[in-house]
Structure formats: C-alpha cells, structure tokens
C-alpha cells in the first residue's frame, strides 16, 4: 500500500463552487473529524461541490457512510456533487458497494467542473 499519510480534509472555495480534498488514510478514528468538516459546507450553499479523492489512500464503511450523508445533505439543498480522481482501490470500493451509481465520478477536478456537475 502507499505510505500512510495523516488524514486531513482541505476545502478550497473556487468562485461559487467548493472543492473538498480528502487526503490520506480515513480510518475509524477520523469519522468525527470528517463529519464535522463536511457538514458546514452544506450550510455555505455553494453552487457545486466536487469531492477530490485523488489523494485518499483508504476508506472504510464509516467514511463511505459519512460521504453518503454529505451527499444527502447537499442533494436536499439542490447542490450538485461529484467525485473526482479516485484511486484504483477506492474506485473498486465504490463499484462493489454500488456507490458509483450515486456519485458522478470524473478523472479529476477540472474534468468535473468542466462537465458542469
């Protein structure tokens, strides 16, 4: 596996959109941090949200559940959301769990934004 990187979430406002970058190893003890970081984004009412997973090394069912809750909150507020840059192992999890049917997935952030998510 790739070297373990301490999990972090970076939020980049870009005009009316927000790019959310999940970085590192989203293990069990990171659930509260992930939830607490994502939820305020919904209240900011961005035009679109792109979740960049290109630097996410690992995710478990807790992380997937939090992403689903985030998606639900955005959708309730009519805010489109897409996922960008999933690595092979993460993409495999999305495929196996059928989350790939719930999130539009793009190669990278720029492709997601260009596609008018």
């Amino acid at each position, binding site marked *: *596996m790739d070297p373990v990187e301490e999990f972090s979430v970076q939020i980049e406002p870009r005009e009316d959109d927000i790019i959310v970058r999940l970085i590192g190893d989203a293990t*069990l003890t990171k659930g509260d941090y992930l939830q607490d970081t994502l939820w305020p984004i919904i209240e900011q009412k961005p035009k679109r949200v792109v979740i960049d997973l290109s630097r996410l090394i690992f995710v478990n*069912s807790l992380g997937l559940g*939090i992403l*689903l809750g985030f998606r*639900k909150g955005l959708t309730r507020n009519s805010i489109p959301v897409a996922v960008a840059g999933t690595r092979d192992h993460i993409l495999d*999890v999305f495929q196996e769990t059928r989350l790939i049917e*719930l999130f539009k997935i793009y190669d990278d952030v720029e492709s997601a934004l260009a596609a008018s998510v």
Partner: protein
Amino acid sequence: MAASYDQRLVLDSRLDEVSRAEKVVLEAVVACNFSDTDQFAIKLALEEALANAIKHGNESDEGKHVTLEFHVDERKLTITICDEGTGFDPQRVPDPTLDENIEKPYGRGVWLIKTYMNEVSYNDQGNCLTMVKFRTHATSSSGR
C-alpha cells in the same frame, strides 16, 4: 526459509486500538509478500471486523476485550477475532447493495468483509469471526 508469523493480541474496546492491531498484521503480510491490493483488502476487513467487535459486540465497554489471533505465511492469512458480546446472526444482516439499501449510510461492514476476504465464517454464538485471505501473485491484475 519461508516467512511465517503467528500472533495473538488482546485489545481494549476502544477504536484507537484498531490501528495497533492493523500495524502488527500488515507488517506480517508485507513480510510475506502480499500485494498492495491484498493489503488494502485485509486492512478494510480488519477495520470493519474490529469496529463491529468493539462497538456492537462489546458495546464499547472498556471492561471487555477483543482478541485477535492470526497466522500468515506466503500462501494465506487467517485471522480470528472474538469479542465478549452475545453475538449476532450474520445471515440476518441486510444486503447493502440492494436498491432499497444503497443510499443508507450504515450497514456495509459485514458485507465488505465477505466481499474482500476469500473465506469468512462465524462461530455458533456469532461473536467470533474467522476470515481468510489467500495471497494473490504479483502477476495477477486483480487482487480478488
């Protein structure tokens, strides 16, 4: 001589214990030349199994413990994880990939273990899980 490891760990019922167990198991599977994809699968199954044992089995009661025993060699990894809870019936866990369940934010742990490991079994009480992962060869394009 081929690498082979046996170890038994006793964990407190706290989520921060999971990383300690993961480190021990993953160091052993790396030493036995398991692929990156195998390592990802093992880590995922371990996190799900230990989270279930700590949160649902032992109900995060710090007076209770989770035991983890494993054997790994260059052919396969076998892990048994037991908690002190009353157990559960894995057959009654809903399939999270059914249409009516895929948007639910919970209920994927047991299913992920079954999907990412090669063999999974429970004792009669349902509080001990044994899972097996066969090492895939480096030339294989798929880890599972």
